[in-house]
């Protein structure tokens, strides 16, 4: 017959029944704990405040950043602005212009000459400085059907 086990009759291992921790453990534990609690708090991240910002602020900020990135990429990706026609013409000598216009390959009619001053007021003053005789000669050289336009 089995003898009933009784807790109150069993020699109690006080205060604990298990093997002791490694030697010196309790001498070192306070230092280890103090090292943990005395450790400097981690420096807050520059954008750590974003975690606590309301959702609408974060959404707005994200949209702004996205749009800004898009605009910057468009601006940086765009080709350099083309030089103005006036600047381009500056590099061409007056004689070359006259030769070009008077050559038979280019047909400049009176409409071109009539519209030119309205778009580029300065260009006529800069490049077209004909004498009276030159004008007369040029007009006389025009085909007769162009005369109706004037």
């Amino acid at each position, binding site marked *: 017959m089995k003898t009933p*086990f009784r807790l109150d009759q069993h020699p109690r291992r006080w205060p*604990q029944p298990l093997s002791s921790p490694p030697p010196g453990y309790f001498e070192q534990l*306070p230092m280890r704990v103090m090292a943990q609690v005395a450790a400097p708090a981690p420096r807050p991240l520059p954008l750590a405040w974003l975690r606590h910002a309301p959702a609408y602020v974060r959404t707005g900020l994200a949209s702004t950043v996205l749009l800004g990135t898009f605009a910057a990429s468009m601006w940086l990706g765009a080709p350099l602005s083309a030089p103005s026609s006036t600047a381009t013409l500056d590099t061409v000598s007056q004689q070359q212009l006259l030769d070009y216009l008077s050559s038979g390959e280019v047909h400049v009619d009176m409409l071109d000459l009539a519209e030119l001053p309205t778009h580029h007021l300065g260009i006529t003053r800069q490049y077209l400085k004909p004498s009276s005789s030159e004008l007369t000669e040029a007009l006389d050289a025009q085909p007769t059907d162009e005369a109706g336009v004037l």
Partner: protein
Amino acid sequence: MEDHEILAKFQHPASRNLAFNQLVRKYQQKVYWHVRKMVIDHDDADDLTQDVFVKVWKNLENFRQDAQLFTWIYRIATNECLSFLQSKRRKFFLPLNDVGAELAAKVEADPAIAGDEIELRLQKAILRLPDKQRLVFNLRYYEEMPYEQMAEVTGTSVGALKASYHHAARKIEEYVTSTDNLASSPDEVD
């Protein structure tokens, strides 16, 4: 150093570290063994003991002196132990008995118990108890803590604690008796 002195010194930044060091030295063994009896493994107990004191450090400023410092620390330690065991089960999808078996294996390997068959059976019987009942049993049987103090630590009524302890003691006695002359295993007898 008395608790009220430790608390007073802790309030001043200049003496805060010194006061806390005294607190750790004063309570480290009680906390460690309280935790160790619950988790059995020394490394786990070491980690948890440090976690307990880190929590004490973080919350000591808000400690209301209507409770004893000792029971307040025990309460933190108890919660840490129960959370640890619960997370262990969740992490490895272990049922209650499997964690008990794992802890029993560690007890079996403990050189302090080796060769003492009755003690080994007793420890295995204790490990078969549910965590909270085991906690109550340990506080009463090994630490001889008054029920009133246990009530503060566990947040349970004295009546419920008494019933829990007596129920635990009866289960342990039955298990140790029933495993007499048998190869003991935590799952042999339910």
